[in-house]
């Protein structure tokens, strides 16, 4: 149950964050891409939360301390470079995680991971390509990409807490390869911030929920 909430909440919250870009992205193509990635994540959330219980009730009726998503996904979009840093760190992690889950003992989780893993490959590639383009672009784009990674870096350790520690070497290798292509150094070591998995969130999650849950809170059980 706890694990399903973590998987489902990661997807739900990041999917919502990406939906905030809709109509605001730098180009039409990027707008489509971010909305599509958000949609894939929303689908994942439906699957995982549907296994945990009533997906709608879990999404719309829980308070912030009951959400078990990692802190990385609730961070504000910032500029496009920060969004790309967050997406690459997350999607590269999810790609590795889902490969393990797809081979795991829980048949229901394995089915979702196998299905969604194919989509996540597209997400990670999209983010990696932009990371390289911005990092290897102009002085301005390089500065922004560096700032974006620096902002997100302190939330990375949480991805590898508990059972997920074994995923780290593969993730490090993937990140290092993309950073090398982008000509960017690895962000400086920082003390990781954790807590999301225990329901202790940054202030940003409450603001997301205020927006996302408003209608169901104001008009309980309202249907389309």
């Amino acid at each position: 149950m706890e694990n399903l909430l973590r998987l489902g909440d990661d997807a739900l919250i990041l999917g919502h964050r990406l939906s905030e870009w809709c109509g605001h992205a730098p180009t039409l193509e990027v707008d489509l891409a971010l909305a599509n990635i958000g949609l894939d994540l929303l689908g994942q959330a439906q699957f995982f939360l549907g296994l945990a219980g009533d997906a709608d009730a879990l999404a719309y009726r829980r308070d912030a301390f009951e959400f078990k998503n990692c802190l990385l996904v609730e961070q504000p979009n910032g500029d496009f470079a920060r969004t790309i840093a967050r997406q690459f760190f997350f999607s590269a992690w999810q790609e590795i995680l889902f490969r393990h889950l797809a081979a795991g003992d829980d048949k229901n989780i394995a089915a979702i991971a196998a299905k969604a893993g194919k989509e996540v490959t597209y997400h990670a590639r999209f983010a990696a390509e932009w990371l390289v383009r911005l990092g290897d672009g102009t002085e301005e784009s390089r500065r922004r990409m560096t700032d974006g990674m620096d902002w997100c870096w302190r939330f990375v350790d949480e991805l590898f807490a508990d059972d997920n520690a074994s995923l780290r070497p593969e993730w490090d290798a993937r990140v290092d390869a993309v950073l090398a292509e982008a000509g960017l150094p690895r962000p400086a070591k920082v003390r990781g911030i954790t807590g999301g998995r225990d329901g202790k969130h940054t202030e940003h999650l409450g603001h997301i929920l205020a927006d996302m849950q408003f209608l169901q809170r104001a008009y309980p059980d309202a249907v389309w």
Partner: protein
Amino acid sequence: MLADEIFSLLAQVPDPEIPVISLTELGIVREVREGATPEVVITPTYSGCPASLVIQQSIRAALDEAGLGHVGIRTELSPAWTTDWISAPGREKLLAYGIAPPETAEGRLKRLDEAPAICPQCRSPNTREISRFGSTPCKALWRCLDCAEPFDRFKCL
């Protein structure tokens, strides 16, 4: 046989997003389980595909109309849907409709990345990807460098 009847019924139900191809040609109707409570087993294309609900409603409507209201609809994720399940006639129809069909797994294995799409308008292979994410989750946006037409390409999954 109930299964045959239902398959030929669903072969007439169009995909809501790409109405030139049917649900069976798209490969999302997995099987029909016969028994006391028969079931149609379907599988989604993309996790978040907004058409999933409409597809279920279309199947329900087709079953009701054929007097098969007792047949259930079940969604199963495993094994995960792949574009390789789009039938050969389905691929022809996509191309005629202006959507470059996805490569098959066989073609894909030989390369790290997808080969250029064939332009559905002029059939030139001189094409370029504009965006890997297009008008629906299952499509990418491409452009023909010969006839200059932009077109959708069904993404390999």
